[in-house]
């Protein structure tokens, strides 16, 4: 009986500790978020002030400016455009070795962005691992590159996705 109760106490303790740990982390994250938002707000206000100032300055000098800038700007625009096109827009597929077999992905790109990644097939991956591994997709999308850290605990499957995306992107670059 004593042993039985001890075990219960242990289990409850462990679950409680993990829950408590999570709680602390999330409250800390909230506090940080508040600070971050505050900072953002401040800098936005500052920017706004600058813009207003600049605007006034521009207005004062408008006449001088107008003539000089129009011709120059046109050239710049076209040049920039060409440099910025990274990919040939379209959907490309790639495949790579995952845990138990091939992982196939489809990557959709616009001229300059990876817009969507879907897993086409991953038949030999274990479901739970694959569920974890797909977390790498938002990471790739936000980094706009396949060169991101793999998901620990689901290394094989996420590496598979990563390499498959890499392969697809290679096909997509001009």
């Amino acid at each position, binding site marked *: 009986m004593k042993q*039985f109760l001890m075990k219960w106490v242990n*289990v409850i303790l462990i679950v409680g500790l993990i829950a408590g740990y999570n709680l602390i982390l999330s409250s800390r994250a909230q506090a940080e978020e508040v600070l971050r938002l505050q900072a953002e707000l401040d800098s936005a206000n500052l920017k706004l002030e600058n813009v207003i100032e600049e605007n006034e300055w521009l207005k004062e000098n408008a006449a001088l400016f107008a003539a000089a800038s129009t011709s120059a700007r046109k050239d710049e625009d076209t040049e920039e455009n060409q440099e910025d096109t990274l990919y040939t827009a379209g959907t490309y597929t790639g495949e790579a070795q995952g845990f138990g077999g091939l992982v196939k992905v489809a990557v959709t790109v616009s001229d300059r962005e990876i817009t969507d990644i879907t897993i086409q097939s991953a038949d030999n991956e*274990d479901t*739970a*691992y694959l569920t974890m591994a797909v977390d790498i997709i938002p990471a790739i999308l936000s980094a706009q590159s396949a060169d991101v850290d793999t998901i620990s605990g689901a290394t094989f499957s996420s590496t598979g996705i990563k390499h498959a995306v890499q392969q697809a992107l290679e096909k997509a670059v001009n």
Partner: protein
Amino acid sequence: MKKEKFDWKNPSKKQWKQIHAWTRTIIQIFFFVMMPSIFTTAFSGVKYIFTRIGTGEAVSMTAFVTALAAICLYTIVFGRFFCGFACAFGSVGDWLHALYLWINKKAGKKKPWKPDRQLMKWLSYVKYAVLALIVILCFTGFYGKTSGWSPWDVFSMLRSGNLRLAAYIPGLILLILIFAGMFVEERFFCKVLCPMGAVFSLLPILPLYALFRDRQNCLKGCSACTRMCPADLELPERGSFHASGDCFQCQKCIDTCPKGNVRCGVKEVKGNELLFTLIRAIILFALMKLAGV
């Protein structure tokens, strides 16, 4: 389940024993084919939790953690039915050991060689050390560097037909050693090394479906159930709370007792009724499906 129909009307005691053994094997094969990765998934939950705490990140309910929680809850209620009937690793061990017994029988050996019982008892504490070691490695972030060492990874890779084992030589060697152990000693890995088994052993298993015996009903000097038991358990007295976390729920003891003295904590069921076994297997399967394994 062919055997049931075979003499369904009135099977003798010995035949019942066979029926139960076959039922168990069939369920084991079923889980081996359908859900071979419960064990690694659930244990990834343990690793995940401690890796996250080690790096100061939040522990979210990922698929791993859900599977871990589900299997632990199930085990608290039903005992280690998962170990006895559904774990791919344990099943392979059982089959290897069956092969060992079969070879011995063919060779005409009455008593197959077994490791010393006392030694096994001491060794059975090693699994807690294994668990502690893995948890510490995860916590300090070193686990990632030991990736070639895990015999479970190798096992899962072999099972899923992935033969790129070059980076996994240490794990492969460990796996072969483990299989050698499982071959001569029933459930060697489960008793001595399995970190998931260590977790199960530490769980407070409810005295509902765990097994007990009425000691005063026993034949004098009998220890048949203990000798049959892969974990060498001396079953606790009914009504106590000493349900052992080391019992795999293999249920061999139930059929072994000449007096039918072994049964579940709950009086209504004995523990090895086909229906009850089937229900538990189905609950386990449904639970694991829900948990996303």
